[in-house]
């Protein structure tokens, strides 16, 4: 057939092309199920070997844990467990609800499945390999099956952290023994659960779809039939996609706050973070071994200017390790507002002049801005700072093989969990050569850390963690910058739900506003 291109054909073709964009896209904003953005793809869906928050968020919504975090809170109530009875500080009896079915035809959850799940954390996987998140269950000694639905947890020592960062969180997701044995390594990409949602679809690097699980027997029914998560690594892109009405919910960067506030039919959600970014000083390295030099640097650096200049003033200043809202937050921690005279006086006492240090940081714009402000601040007191910015691969490799021993000043961003012991562990002597880049060694701090792990009394724990932060403060090895802040935009019709850190999303509790 010979195609004839005349004026009429051309106009018809052009019109069809012009209509193409409208044909379905015009209805994109009329969704009843939310489409949201996540900045990282699924890496590994095995709860014990997950690699990021995306998997954690999915696992918590697809699997059941003995107890589940309540919506937006770090308190918990029973989920898979009908009852948990405390026998002593280190013994707990549990009873499962009957009839809780795993998806994929893997049958009913029994106490055997709970034992199998937790034993992987205690003993490693099938080949004995330690799980990446094994330390979340560090306090767990053994699981004993006493009946089809009943069992006993025995702990090595009393532990509050076990529940908060282990059993309640993604690490505590109860897996089907049968499914794991059948699927083998495929459990990295296949999630069999019994929770409020199922992982209906996952297209790597593109999107995943969570669907309500009609067979879920627990108390937390999902509110949406489906939630689609698009993988959009750049916040700038996802924020623009939100504005183009392709998305109903996304995180965005602080510098877009004003734009976000002006968007129609949009709620801006602002959640103070509990993470921590600090400037660390290597107390074993050259002139930094002198406490007065470190104190001088602490007085010389203008953290308020850093908050304004590097974080657009959109986050608040940190004054200690543990963020407000966390157990052990030291509310009365001293605030070191810039005092050049004090810094110069301390340096004069040391008799040191012409000090030069290297400032190591990630090569993103925020880190570089922090480095440049610190460089300018220290220049005023006669300290020369050379900035050594690295990409993430090279930067995080400093946590291996004692590579951190030559570091001087570093800007370190760490993520948190809800139990203070998770944050304090990186400052232990045992972490020197790994993640304690300050190389600060305090036997007293280490002793308190262990006490904190084994103490259950809330008030006593609080006092322990405050004492630990006082020791850190006396060392002048850390200049606390910020706990971060999480910003989200969401369509007015949608009500997302997060745990109080803003990082852990609870898809099962997403609802219509």
């Amino acid at each position, binding site marked *: 057939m010979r195609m004839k291109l005349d004026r009429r054909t051309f106009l018809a073709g052009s019109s069809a092309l012009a209509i193409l964009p409208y044909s379905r896209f015009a209805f994109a904003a009329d969704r009843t199920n939310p489409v949201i953005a996540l900045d990282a793809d699924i890496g*590994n869906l095995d709860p014990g070997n997950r690699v990021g928050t995306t998997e954690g968020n999915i696992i918590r919504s697809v699997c059941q844990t003995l107890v589940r975090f309540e919506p937006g809170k770090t308190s918990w109530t029973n989920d898979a467990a009908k009852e948990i009875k405390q026998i002593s500080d280190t013994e707990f009896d549990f009873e499962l609800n009957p009839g809780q079915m795993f998806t994929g035809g893997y049958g009913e959850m029994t106490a055997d499945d709970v034992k199998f799940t937790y034993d992987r954390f205690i003993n490693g996987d099938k080949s004995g390999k330690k799980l990446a998140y094994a330390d979340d269950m560090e306090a767990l000694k053994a699981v004993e099956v006493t009946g089809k639905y009943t069992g006993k947890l025995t702990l090595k020592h009393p532990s509050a952290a076990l529940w908060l960062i282990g059993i309640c969180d993604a690490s505590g997701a109860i897996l089907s023994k049968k499914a794991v044995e059948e699927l083998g390594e495929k459990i990295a990409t296949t999630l069999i659960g019994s929770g409020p949602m199922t992982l209906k679809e996952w297209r790597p690097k593109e999107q995943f779809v969570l669907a309500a699980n009609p067979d879920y027997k627990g108390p937390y029914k999902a509110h949406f039939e489906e939630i689609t998560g698009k993988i959009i690594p750049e916040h700038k892109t*996802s924020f*623009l*996609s939100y504005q183009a009405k392709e998305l109903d919910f996304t995180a965005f960067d602080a510098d877009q706050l004003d734009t976000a506030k002006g968007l129609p039919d949009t709620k801006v959600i602002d959640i103070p973070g509990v993470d921590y970014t600090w400037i660390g000083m290597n107390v074993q390295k050259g002139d930094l071994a002198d406490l007065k030099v470190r104190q001088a640097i602490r007085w010389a650096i203008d953290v308020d200017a850093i908050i304004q200049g590097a974080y657009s003033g959109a986050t608040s200043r940190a004054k200690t390790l543990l963020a407000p809202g966390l157990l052990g937050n030291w509310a009365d921690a001293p605030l070191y507002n810039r005092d050049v005279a004090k810094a110069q006086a301390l340096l004069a006492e040391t008799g040191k002049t012409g000090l030069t240090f290297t400032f190591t940081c990630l090569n993103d714009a925020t880190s570089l801005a922090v480095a440049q402000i610190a460089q300018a601040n220290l220049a005023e007191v006669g300290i020369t700072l050379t900035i050594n910015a690295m990409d993430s691969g090279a930067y995080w490799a400093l946590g291996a093989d004692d590579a951190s021993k030559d570091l001087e000043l570093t800007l370190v961003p760490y993520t948190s969990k809800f139990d203070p012991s998770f944050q304090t562990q990186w400052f232990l002597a045992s972490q020197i050569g790994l993640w304690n880049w300050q190389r600060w060694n305090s036997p007293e701090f280490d002793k308190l850390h262990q006490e904190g792990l084994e103490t259950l009394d809330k008030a006593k724990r609080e006092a322990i963690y405050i004492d630990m932060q006082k020791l850190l403060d006396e060392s002048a090895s850390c200049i606390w910058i910020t706990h971060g802040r999480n910003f989200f935009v969401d369509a007015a019709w949608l009500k997302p739900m997060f745990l109080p850190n803003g990082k852990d999303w609870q898809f099962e509790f997403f609802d219509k506003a």
Partner: protein
Amino acid sequence: MTRSQRTAAFIASRLASVVLTIAGATLLLFLMVRLVPGDFTSVMLGPRATPELRAQITHDMGLDRSLPEQLWLFASRAATGDFGEDVVSHRPILDIVLDVIPNTLALAFSALVLALVVGIPIGVIAALKPGSWLDSGLALLSISFITTPTLVVSVILFLVFAIGLHWLPVAGAGAPGDIVDRLQHLILPSVALALGWVGYISRLVRASLLDTLGELHVRTLRAYGVSEYRIVGLYALKLALVPVVSILGIGLGDLIGSSVVVEIIFARSGIGSLIFNSIAQRNYPVVQACVVFIVAFYIVANLVVDMVNALLDPRIAAGRG
């Protein structure tokens, strides 16, 4: 030697050079990625990277073997299409690459077609009115296209057509099997990627067509009273397009390389974004597999162009072109 024998010999020699080039590029890449400081375990696991876990993953990735051993393992497996398993997801790396390659090819081919469809007419119009205001205007337009970075074009398209007019979607590659959705998601990235090549092709066509229009056989056609439209459309343009065909291989390779930026901005899964993320994570096996695919594709595209040219112009096959 007959013409067909010469052509066959030419193709055989080119195929041999393809194998050598892929092997050389693979070796170079293998050594280069290992010069970059940093390791996979630190990036992926951060503070959870205990010495035991680090050792385990290093072993799983084969990084505890000697360099020659690693190279031999990689090359011998890659030759059979086995690029190993991703240590995080335990998926075959070949599957990971094959998942995303269709998106990148669709993007590169659509951008190339767009560049040809728009660039050739602009070049022809400019060549037909040399020295006119129209020629100057089109020259300015073409050079603007060439010099405007893909990043800037992407953002402008983004703001105008997705956010301002709400005509087109921004992120992703669209739903598989839904051709309309796939096309909608392809339009803006293709335009962003194609624009620079629209400029190149239009300038190339203009220069080539002006040369052709000045040749003796064209003057002869004019002397016989053949209309200018027939001369351009039926005779001169065919000859003028020979250099365009020659650069298509390079163009396709360049478009696949440039797709990294576009795929990141438009959040499209593709080999560009995969390689970018894998480099950031020091995920060497995935990087290696991606680059082998890109190198192979680039070389095969050029080989096809060479063969087409050899068939069109026997002097090339005879080594006289």
